[in-house]
Structures are given as C-alpha cells and as structure tokens.
C-alpha cells in the first residue's frame, strides 16, 4: 500500500469513513465469525484477514510508509469503535499492536524491512512472550536467559500464558542478558522464529474450554544476534516506553456493552424485565456501562486532541473489567437453573450462553495488568499515596 493511497482516509469526514468501514464489513465479514463470545483462532479468521490485507487494512494505526492506513488518532478510535460495534473478530494482533510500533521506534532499518511488511499482509503472525511461571505481575523477575555465544544468542527457559502461540510464526521475547545487573536493567528484547530447533509449544486449555494460550519452552535455542532489538539490556525500557495511548483500549466499554446486549436478549426471552428484583440490578449495570462509556469518551477526546494519557487511564480498565464481570454474573443468575448448563440456549429467537460469558470474563481482571496492580498504580501515581 503506498502513501498516496492512504491519504484519502484522513481527508474523509468521519461519517463517510465509518460508512466505508461498515459497508466493507457487512459485505465481506461472514456473520458466523461476528459477535463471537470467544477468542477466534487464526485459521477461523484467515479468510477475513485475507480480505482486510488486500484492502491494506491490517494495520490501521501504522504510518502509511510502513504499510499502515496512516490514520490519525481520531480516525483510529473511530475504526476501533466501528469494528467493535459490528462484532468484527479480533485476529491474532500482537504483531500489529505491539511489535510493529516497537520496531518502528527502536528497530534497525534491516529489522523493519524484514518484519513489518509480512505483518501488514497478515502473512506472519506474532505472539508475546513476556510472562513466565514465576514472573507474572512481577514481570521484571523473568529468568529466561539469552547467553551471548559470539555470533548468536543461546536461549534457555520457559514462557507461559502466551496467547495463541500455537498459531504464531514468531515470538518476541523479553530475556535476561545480564544476571548481575538490577532486575530491570539486565533484560533484552529478542525476536525469535518459532521454527527454530529447541522450541516446544504446549497449548493450555482454559476454563472456557479453548486452547487459548501456551507454555513455550526454549532448550538451547540459537538466535542470530541481528534479532536483538535496540541495545543489549534495554528491553525493559523499550517495552515500557510502548505503553502509549493503546492502554485506553484495555478500558474500552465494548466487552461490557456486548455482554449487556446478551443479558438483554436473555431477559427479553424469559420476561425477566417484569421482575423488579432483576430490573433493579439490570438498571444499575446499564447505568454502569453508560457511565463507563462516558468516562471512556473523556479519555478518548484527550487522545484525539493529541494529549498523552496519564496513569489515571487505569481507572478505565479497573471499572470496565469489573462491570463486564458483574454483567456476566447477573446473566448466569437471571438464567436460573439454565445458568449452570454448558452451551447456548434459545431465548426468543436469540441464542445466549451465560456460562461461556461468565468464564470468558474471568481473566479480564488478570491480564493486561491485574486489577490489584492497576489500583496500586492509581493509588500511588494519581492519588499520591505513599508506598506500602
């Protein structure tokens, strides 16, 4: 995709931009994969991502020079909102959302030339190898090691909870390169081809009964030196520097809105709106979602004005995920005895799967910085409370 082709998006007014996205999704994105209450696998979304790739729409937030749509932040937010509203499935996007921006900022020209184009064509899929069995919230405690062996590194260790690693071609790793340095200072950022000998992936089945993430084992894995991004021992700083305005998406009201929509379908089907006990609980959640969306809009405006986000953006994720979970809990409760049965049930002419919703909502308060960690950040960085 050339720079010239990308320009028209910014020239478009927002309404026609949204209409263009909507028309394309309605025409090309199959109904079976939209509004799905689960994370889709690569093969399931492949036909759709091909179409997006042909359009040049895999990387909406990337500058046109790297093959992105070159959208302004405002248009990017509109893109995201429109896709969420239409229930477009999320394709494996670690390369798009995390690795791409990091390489643009810290990568070498050779790395950008090698890795960015296949991401924009959805040909190479990446996964994020940060967490380890003993390094979760305390990520800087990671121990997977990359030993300097002259012209290459030798990687040994284990990553875990790596989302859809079994579907990925590459993994970007935080690895320890200096064991003597302070925790954060001995960490480097490494790009690894998952076909390299010595790598084993073991999918892990979740409570939702999906193989959503993997353990990834590294046993004397040889990685060329040119796969190091930035300088040695700068991995932590680079990974943290990247936590930019994307953080707002973790607090988006979309999961809550989607769940509320299912709860409403169920309640229409059972007649629960006639039950004042239910109505009271429902109304509170409806208000919570509405107010969340209004708070989100305030942060979104800040982003659209080009202002950086502060630590206070964490309050979105704290409330969004708690609200999302409470909606799924009420859905299970409103389903009565059916709420403990596996699989979808018909409510009127709609289908709702309360247990699937409930399971899927559980980890939202764990990944992307747990709610406890987020509260700690807000308490200190925003409210100015002292360290414990």
């Amino acid at each position, binding site marked *: 995709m050339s720079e010239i082709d990308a320009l028209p998006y910014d020239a478009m007014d927002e309404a026609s931009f949204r209409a263009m996205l909507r028309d394309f999704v309605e025409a090309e994105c199959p109904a079976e994969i939209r509004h799905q209450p689960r994370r889709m696998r690569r093969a399931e979304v492949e036909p759709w991502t091909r179409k997006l790739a042909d359009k040049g729409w895999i990387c909406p937030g990337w500058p046109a020079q790297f093959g992105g749509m070159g959208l302004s932040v405002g248009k990017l937010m509109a893109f995201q909102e429109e896709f969420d509203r239409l229930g477009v499935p999320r394709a494996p996007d670690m390369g798009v959302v995390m690795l791409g921006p990091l390489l643009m900022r810290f990568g070498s020209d050779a790395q950008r030339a090698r890795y960015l184009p296949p991401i924009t064509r959805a040909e190479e899929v990446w996964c994020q190898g940060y967490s380890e069995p003993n390094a979760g919230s*305390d990520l800087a*405690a990671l121990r997977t090691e990359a030993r300097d062996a002259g012209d290459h590194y030798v990687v040994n260790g284990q990553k875990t909870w790596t989302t859809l690693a079994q579907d990925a071609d590459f993994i970007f790793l935080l690895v320890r390169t200096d064991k003597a340095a302070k925790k954060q200072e001995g960490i480097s950022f490494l790009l690894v081809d998952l076909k390299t000998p010595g790598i084993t992936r073991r999918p*892990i089945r979740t409570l939702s009964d999906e193989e959503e993430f993997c353990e990834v084992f590294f046993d004397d894995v040889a990685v060329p030196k040119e796969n190091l991004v930035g300088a040695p021992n700068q991995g932590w700083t680079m990974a943290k520097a990247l936590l930019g305005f994307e953080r707002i998406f973790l607090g988006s009201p979309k999961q809550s809105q989607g769940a509320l929509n299912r709860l409403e379908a169920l309640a229409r089907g059972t007649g629960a709106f006639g039950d004042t006990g239910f109505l009271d609980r429902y109304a509170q959640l409806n208000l919570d979602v509405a107010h969340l969306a209004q708070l989100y809009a305030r942060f979104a405006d800040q982003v659209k004005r080009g202002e950086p986000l502060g630590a206070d953006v964490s309050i979105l994720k704290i409330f969004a995920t708690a609200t999302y979970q409470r909606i799924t809990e009420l859905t*299970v409760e409103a389903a*009565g005895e059916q*709420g403990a*049965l596996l699989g979808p049930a018909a409510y009127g002419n709609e289908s709702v799967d309360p247990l699937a919703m409930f399971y899927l909502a559980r980890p939202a308060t*764990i990944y992307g910085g747990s*709610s406890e960690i987020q509260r700690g950040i807000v308490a200190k960085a925003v409210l100015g409370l002292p360290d414990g």
Partner: protein
Amino acid sequence: MPEPSDTPDDIAVLIRESAVSHVAAEDTVGRARRLREIDGHLDQEAFIAWSRLGWTAMLGPAERGGGLGLSEAVALHEELGKGLAGGPLIHGAHVPMLAAGACTGAAASRVVASIAEGTPYALAFQPSGGALESHATAVRLQEGGSVLRLQGAAHYVPSHGGHLLVAARGPAGLVLYHVDARAPGLRRTTARAADGSHVSSLVFDDVRVADDDLVGRTGEAERALDAALDRGRIIQSALLLGVMRATLARTLDYLKTRKQFGKTIGAFQVLQHRAVDLYVQVELTAAALTHAIALADTAQDPVLLAGAASSAKVRASEAALLVTREAIQMHGAIAYTQEHDIGLFLNQALTQAAALGNAAAHRRRYGLIVARQIAA
C-alpha cells in the same frame, strides 16, 4: 454405620470422619475432574459405595437403615463438598428418599428399599427454572377409564439412571409416581452442567402409569415433596459450605507460597483483606446453616422450613460463587486453566448454586415469606 446407642452428636462426628476418609481414599477431586473432562455420566459404582457406607439410606425410615436427621447429613456433605463429591448423593438419594419416606403409596416402600440399596432416583417437578415448589408441576395425571397417563414436561431433572419420581397434578391434587425412564412416550433431552453432570428435560406424552407405581397419594405428596426439597436445599448449602471452605484453604495456601516482587503475595494487604472478607462469608454460611438445621428439625410449619431453606441457600450460593471467583482472581492466570483444580470448585459452586433454585429464586421466596409475616 454408627450404633443406635450413639448420641446424635457422636454420630455426626463419626459420619464426618468417614466422609473425610472417603474423599481421601477415593480421590474424589480426581473423580470430579474425570467427570468434567470425559463424560459426566453418573457412575453407578459411586451409589453402590455410598449405599455400603449407609449414606443412601440415612435419611429414610429407621427400619431401613435410616433414622438420621439433617445434622448428620449436613456434617456428611460439608466434608463431601470439600472433595467435590456428594452432589449426586443429594439429588439421587437424599431428596428422593426424604420424599418417598414420607409417603404411603403402593410403591413407596419399594422405592425406599431400592434407594437404600444404592439405586439412584431423580425427582421431576420443575415446569421451568426458578420454580421452587411441587405445586408448580406442569405434568398432569389423566384418568381414562382404568388407564392412567402422564402428560406434560419437566425440566432440570438430574440424569440419575433409570428411575424417576414424577410430581403430577391429578384430579384431586398433587400425586407422586415412580416412572421408568425408558417408558414409552417419555422423551429426554440431556445437557451437561458446569461440573460435567447430566441434566435432562423430560416430555411426557401419554406415559402410562399403574396404581402400583403410586408413591405419594393426594394429600400427602405435596407436603412430602416440598419438605424433601427444602431439606435437600439445606444439605446442598452444606455441600456449598464444604466447597468454599476447601477453596479458601487452597487459596490461603497459594497466598502463603506464591512469590511476586520478592514477597509471598499473601503479604499484600489488599489480598489479606479480601481473604478476610471471604472468611466472613464462609462463617456467615456456617451460622445460617446451623440455624436452618435447628428450625428444620423442629418446624412443623412448612413456611418456616421454606424460609430456613431459602435463607441458607441464598447465603451459601452467593458466598460459594464469591469465594470461587475470588479464588481465581487471587491465583492469577494459573486458575484460568482446566489443569488447575480451582476451576473444578468453581464449577461445583455454579452447579449446586443453580440446582433446586439459585440465590435470586430463593431471595424472591424469602422476601415474600417475610413480607407476609410482616403484613400479618
């Protein structure tokens, strides 16, 4: 089984001890995992084992090896709940036994004997979710000359093999029939619950029954059924108490061993406070349960029993779901996997919280009972 000379408290202690060894010896948590992962079909062996231990008979008449009360059943199920066992025992033996044991129809003593020997039965009465009492049944008994037929549907029936106890509305009131699950005209669709067990919807399309199949007569059946259901809910609350006690214990162990930021995570005050809040809920459940047992053992008034059962079930369901949800949160990603046992406890809590009426249904009933008392 305990000797008749034992005092009730001793019996409860003995039963508790045998439940503890049953959970350990049979690896009931591992069994719950297989039930969830492979096939939740009830294993008949478990019922035979429970029968040998005297547990299927304990709430039946004394001359059939029963004669024990709620205190003993509650002690048993608190321990079984810790091992994720006991659900089928409640739904397949205790509730049907309590119902049949209080009835005098031609089939009543046959059913009692058969449950005591380890044959599971399933009670069918719910026309839809949230129906708590037997009078709601949507199965009708139709008399055509000398032939009796059942017509209608019942939902959320535990799939416990071949024997059903069906609450039906007859010309003069509610009756209870023993029906073979393979009877012509009976259609069954089965779903799986969160814990892997099977739950059925039944459609009765001219299912023939005989006088000989009558368990509960008009006049006695409704009261027997409702009392059995409410006692069953109190026992179910004990099972949920066991589930939450075990979940909290496992979570506390994890908080004491998992290290992040150079500390055991149990040292973080926020997690300490949350653990205390869970402990408060566990103890509230235990207290509500003790109170419910006392009321149920003495109450002649079905409304008192209903209030006691709903009170226990509301607290136990809410608390068990809270404790298991929070357990997942405090474990982090590892608890979101099927390999980790905490998910099995969550699934047990979900299953038992919903069966026989969830917290919302019991809050509603409790609220109506209290409102009537206040108005009177």
